[in-house]
């Protein structure tokens, strides 16, 4: 397009060093990749969550077993990660719905809403985690 762009050193080959230290993903990029990661995680974890829902509704013994199971710390930690995944996917998703409507697409607003998504989803995770246990 412009002559300034033409003068850049292209193609730029990405070294590990460049990936780790030189190129930083902007905050909206973090929200984006985490939206994808959380979505994939939720897709994979649905089988586990359905299994717990199934057991907990099947009988009172099943309900108690699931409650005990959910108290084990590896399970607790995994559930907390999934709660975060849901909250992040939820908040980032609302942000994308607004972006689709052309709201908040300028750089400053997009950056601000990215921070809000990251912070609010972590806060929601902490709150729901506290409510659950």
């Amino acid at each position, binding site marked *: 397009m412009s002559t300034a762009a033409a003068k850049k050193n292209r193609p730029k080959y990405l070294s590990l060093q460049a990936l780790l230290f030189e190129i930083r993903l902007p905050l909206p990029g973090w929200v984006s990749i985490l939206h994808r990661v959380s979505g*994939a995680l939720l*897709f994979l974890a*649905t089988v586990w969550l359905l299994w717990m829902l199934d057991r907990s*509704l099947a009988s009172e013994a099943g309900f108690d077993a699931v409650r005990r199971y959910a108290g084990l710390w590896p399970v607790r930690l995994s559930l907390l990660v999934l709660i975060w995944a849901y909250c992040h996917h939820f908040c980032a998703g609302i942000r994308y719905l607004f972006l*689709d409507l052309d709201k908040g697409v300028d750089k400053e607003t997009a950056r601000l809403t990215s921070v809000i998504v990251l912070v609010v989803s972590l806060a929601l995770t902490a709150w729901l985690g506290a409510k659950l246990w």
Partner: protein
Amino acid sequence: MSRVVVGAHYGLRDWLAQRVTAVLMAVYTVIVLAVLLGAAPISYGVWTDLFTQGWMRVATLLFAASLAWHMWVGVRDIVMDYVRADGLRLALQVVVLLVIAGYLGWTVQILWR
């Protein structure tokens, strides 16, 4: 533009479906969360009572159907981005569809046991 079998569906439908289902699921999430927080502490009785109510069964089925469609569009996008070989991509897409169908069937079984 060449139309690829293992590509997107080249239209507004999937894009729109992903967004409409997202809104439906968001509404369900807020309502069910409010009900659960209001009913806490959750005993076995409260838990099963909730899931035997007609509105909850229908709402949860709608949620599950929305989730199935939403998942399909989302996971297919991921597969299309990272899996380049057509054969492997098709195989993965079939597996994803089967898994989603399984999820949906299981949910129906759980709700109307």
